[in-house]
């Protein structure tokens, strides 16, 4: 168990080093490290299944001084989501970056990003969370700028500044907690936080910093330019995985570090911001003229659902309804990761084949690229939250939770959000199915098209029908 925990971080990190040192072989090194770290996550899954949540003190240093890794059901689900999405994107990326100089820049940064994500999901103390958060931010910014065009660099620069501001806010909270309680270990801090002013101040600055990083409306302004100007594989990872890291941290902090500090008002505020994100993000996605911008605004909206679910989960009284809301929240986060990465990869295929991603000029795409259009439709099913996708079950529980807590405003917003999502997905499909000559070939480039299709199938079929299999895993978490 111990080895697999450290390996999930060490393998991509070492791979990144080798890829940087040996640029001629960077693609094979990259694919090999991604496959190996996926296997390490699989190993960790089976040991967690056998032994339950566990800890590892790296290098034998005592917790408090050394680095403590911690794995539980939530972290293993996040790790598995990351591993599978990264695997699919890596296959796509190995054919996307055709020039050797581009590939040599992509792979080291990509593997560093994977190592940072895995480290973040396993970190057991507040300071290591800060370090992994910064590593993630820096590698994500550098990846955003890889395209090299002016808009991309400007977006990356703004993304960097916002990220730094966010993580500095988080660090300020860490400093307050250390000054007050003399420890950084999450469990030890959690035992001491309460309704005192220091805990409240720390909760506020840390949450604000992380909301900035996870782009909750109205702090989302940096996301659409960054996610829509990055190269396709990078956009997919940014929207599917990187923003989830901020959300995951808020979830951990609220439920485990500050369970007695978070107030009803705080939860209500976040629920209202989430509702704003759903309406504004979906509306902007409907207005977008380019596919990538549509996908980026759809991420803003989907993050809104996650934060609404989190706020409802926090305010729900203990019991089965609360546990089900936790399951809904995790299921929606997982589904969105697969659906959105699929959507961005499919858009990448369209951009590559037609040279543009203007929605109004998509006519004939369904005939030219049937497999890719099918992937967009499947991902769309998950984004709208139609059955049988994982998001359908998640949204169903979310609606149920909002009704039982008598949050009628949220019920209405969730309904309107789903209608708007249906409108923006069908707008794309409507244009894509425009009249054109039929092609008899389903796939044009298997390597380019299947990652998106597999991701969409996972979001829509696997997570929908397989959610009963994930559920027992989460039951004890809530």
């Amino acid at each position, binding site marked *: 168990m111990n080895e697999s925990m450290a390996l999930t971080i060490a393998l991509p990190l070492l791979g990144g080093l080798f890829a940087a040192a040996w640029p001629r072989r960077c693609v094979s090194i990259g694919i090999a490290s991604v496959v190996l770290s996926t296997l390490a996550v699989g190993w960790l899954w089976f040991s967690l299944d056998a032994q339950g949540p566990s800890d590892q003190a790296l290098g034998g240093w005592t917790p408090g001084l050394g680095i403590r890794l911690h794995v539980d059901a939530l972290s293993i689900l996040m790790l598995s989501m990351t591993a599978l999405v990264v695997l699919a994107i890596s296959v796509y990326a190995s054919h996307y970056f055709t020039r050797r100089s581009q590939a040599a820049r992509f792979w080291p940064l990509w593997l560093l990003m994977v190592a940072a994500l895995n480290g973040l999901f396993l970190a057991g103390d507040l300071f290591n969370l800060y370090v992994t958060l910064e590593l993630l931010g820096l590698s994500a910014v550098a990846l955003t700028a890889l395209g*090299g065009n002016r808009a991309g660099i400007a977006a990356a620069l703004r993304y*960097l500044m916002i990220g*730094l501001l966010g993580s500095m806010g988080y660090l*300020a909270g860490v400093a307050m907690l250390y*000054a007050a309680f003399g420890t950084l270990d999450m469990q030890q801090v959690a035992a001491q936080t309460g309704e005192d002013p220091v805990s409240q101040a720390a909760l506020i600055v840390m949450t604000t910093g992380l909301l900035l990083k996870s782009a909750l409306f109205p702090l989302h302004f940096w996301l659409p330019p960054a996610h829509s100007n990055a190269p396709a594989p990078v956009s997919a990872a940014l929207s599917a995985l990187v923003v989830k890291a901020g959300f995951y941290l808020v979830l951990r902090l609220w439920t485990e570090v500050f369970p007695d500090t978070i107030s009803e008002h705080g939860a209500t505020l976040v629920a209202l911001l989430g509702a704003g994100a759903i309406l504004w993000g979906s509306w902007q996605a409907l207005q977008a003229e380019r596919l990538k911008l549509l996908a980026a605004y759809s991420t803003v909206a989907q993050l809104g659902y996650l934060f609404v679910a989190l706020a409802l989960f926090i305010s729900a009284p203990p019991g089965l309804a609360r546990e089900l809301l936790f399951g809904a929240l995790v299921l929606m986060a997982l589904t969105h990761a697969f659906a959105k990465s699929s959507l961005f990869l499919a858009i990448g295929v369209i951009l590559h084949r037609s040279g543009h991603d203007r929605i109004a000029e998509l006519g004939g795409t369904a005939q030219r690229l049937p497999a890719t259009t099918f992937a967009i439709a499947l991902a769309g099913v998950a984004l709208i939250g139609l059955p049988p996708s994982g998001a359908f079950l998640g949204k169903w529980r979310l609606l149920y939770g909002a009704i039982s807590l008598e949050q009628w405003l949220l019920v209405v917003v969730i309904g309107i959000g789903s209608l708007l999502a249906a409108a923006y997905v069908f707008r794309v499909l409507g244009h894509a199915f425009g009249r054109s000559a039929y092609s008899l070939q389903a796939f044009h480039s298997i390597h380019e098209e299947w990652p998106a299709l597999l991701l969409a199938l996972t979001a829509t079929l696997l997570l929908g029908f397989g959610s009963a299999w994930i559920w027992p895993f989460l039951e004890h978490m809530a």
Partner: protein
Amino acid sequence: MPDPATLYGLLGIVLAGLGVHAAIVQRDSIRRLLAINVMGVGVFLVLIATAYFGPDQDPDPIPHALVLTGIVVAVAATALALALLRAFERSEDE
């Protein structure tokens, strides 16, 4: 006269506040980057202040290690921001 730890802690909070204010208000990228650095220095100062227990006692080493790590991260981030800024300026010339 308050004790040194309080004084440094308060100074750190003031610096961090100034940094946040400037990072939001300033439009120029270099100024904004400097503001974020000032904010970082403020946070580091607060952390250092928590390590001080008086002239007769050894300071707590953990905050020192944290601040060292924080400085390394801040330097790396500043370098990346400057490199991006230069790339941006160059793309303007083309």
